[in-house]
């Protein structure tokens, strides 16, 4: 993978969630930080999000969630595993209680950003983790060859 390739991120709402403020604001500052943002908008099923991740060859899936159950986020993780796409970083933002944050992380969500998270914390997290994964992949590639 080329080090200079722009980081590609999907930002999406999931299921019937129609609260778009978080998703729109985050998309805007990720673009400002030089990332390629594919904003999927509302009414996206886990299947649609994963399909878009394949088509768009993204590094990160960002899900904005304002809900009271999080099963569809877990479905995204399961689908990615099924398709051997473990290198895609899944991050979630929204009104999610601490206990649920812990559960989502145990299920494979890389990080959860609660309301009022700073843009810097989100951008820094994505950049450092995507670059780290790239380095790991390179290393693995070298060992193989």
């Amino acid at each position, binding site marked *: 993978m080329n080090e200079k390739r722009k980081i590609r991120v999907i930002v999406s709402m999931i299921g019937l969630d129609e609260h778009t403020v978080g998703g729109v604001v985050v998309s805007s500052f990720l673009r400002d930080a030089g990332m390629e943002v594919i904003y999927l908008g509302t009414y996206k099923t886990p299947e649609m999000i994963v399909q878009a991740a394949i088509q768009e060859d993204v590094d990160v899936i960002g899900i904005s969630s304002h809900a009271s159950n999080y*099963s569809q986020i877990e479905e995204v993780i399961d689908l990615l595993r099924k398709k051997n796409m473990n290198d895609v970083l899944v991050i979630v933002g929204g009104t999610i209680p601490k206990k649920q944050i812990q559960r989502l992380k145990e299920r494979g969500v890389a990080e959860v950003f609660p309301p009022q998270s700073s843009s810097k914390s989100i951008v820094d997290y994505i950049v450092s983790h995507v670059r780290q994964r790239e380095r790991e992949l390179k290393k693995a590639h070298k060992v193989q060859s």
Partner: protein
Amino acid sequence: MKRETDYGHPIKEVYGPEDVAGLSYERDLGDPGKYPYTRGYYPEGYRGRLWTQRMTAGLISSAETNKVLKKYREMGERGGMCVICDRTFAMPIDADHPIGRKEVGVLGWPGGSLLEFETLMDGIPMTGQSVTLLSTCASGPLQLAYIVVYCQKNGINLSEIHGAATSYPFANCFGQCDCQPLDLDLKLFLDAAEYTIRNGIKMRTCLLSQHAQESGLNNAQALGVEMAMLNELCGLLVNERGLDFDDVALLSFELVSIGMRFFEEIAKMRALRRMWAKVAKEKFKAKKERSLQLLMAVHTSGRTMTYQQPLNNIVRATIETLAGVIGGCTAMDNACMDNPQAEPSELAARMSLNTQHIISDETGVADVVDPLAGSYFVEYLTNKVEEEAYKVWNDIEAQGGMVAAVKKGYIQNMVEKAMRERQREVETGERVIIGVNKLVIPPEDDFEIPIKEVKIEDSEKEARRIEEWKKTRNMALIEKSLSQLYKDAQKGDRFNLMPSIIEAVRVYATAGEIMGVIRKARGLSYDPFNMIECPFNFE
């Protein structure tokens, strides 16, 4: 920290007579109960009638929501009840829809059929209190039909019911969406409104500038958008549906969002009363005095509640509740301390209702009408927010009015720009939020509040119950009523669908079925998500 209003107008250190030099008491304020009603509609204020003290309920199932409503009455809810719809009924799709079943009962009441309304209202009086059902535009006609049929079946005089059951057609711009196109929403809104007025039903329709403000618009923008919406919808009902303005004027109630800018929030409410009175009198030529009085309920802002240090939210809700009371509201539901985390826990709901009671019963604030009138600062702010709101409203009119502005994406752009600006202000510290960008503590030191949890199993259980129940219905009756609805829905936008919706509701057709049939008749897919086929054949 900037010293300016929510809408970016600089604030001075002190205000005096020169700041309100042109103010005429008779022309611009008037005594309470007198035009232009800046000081309120009632000379006796809250002494005559206290505001309705309520909490918004709705979660998991009709039976659970019914329990919560009863609990709220014990906790001191008085004057009225308020229910908000869940994700499925918002669209509306049925609980057993492939997407719906994952989110039944999420964030609200799953009101997918008359059965659900009957369960919701079990043991709760329809009269003697206001019944407010908040939902989306598309589910509004269904809720209105539930009320009509419920009253007929239970021998309740429909004219004794008051509250609200329908909603305005622009919420899709502000994140409170159904999944229907604007032209369908607009038609359904007009049908329900016309039916309500022509049948002398007192149920109102919600016009929520609260949504606009909660999506990011500032006080002046929210006020301007509100006036543009009122102007457009009243105009349509008068001109397209041939209704009398004096009837149309009583249809809407406005849910105002009250945020943290204490004096500005009060000024906004005073300005809204004055702006509506003027437009009703001068433009719409109202003949009756009541037509000049826009009913105003308050929702204290959920957006101002913070995830971090949630106990701070009790303080915020108190300040906002106080502003709403001083501003002169008819009803109030205040946000809870756990708003950014989950649905209200019992403790959080109790705190919010207690806040209202402490203000009404301990402080003396409710004893005097419009106590801040004559304050140089508040009168200045009232004039200023009105002036700024007129600019916003005029800009929307220049786009061709609210419907045209939504079609052009003008309103959506305004919202997006405003939300980005707000994020920037918080990040730079220009807008201080305690616990977020000042006096921050590590998450592990934060106080843990109780959290109301909803699990996927709860949704699945509901989905299965509905799936089974659907099979027990008299399908011949349902098909007959839906067939009529299908025919009527092909008769053009001016043909009112309420009578056939009511008949379908009466025989327990579901929200998903009714909306699906209307969609199909209009050449849309039966299922907005294209996952299920239409189970009926009317050809």
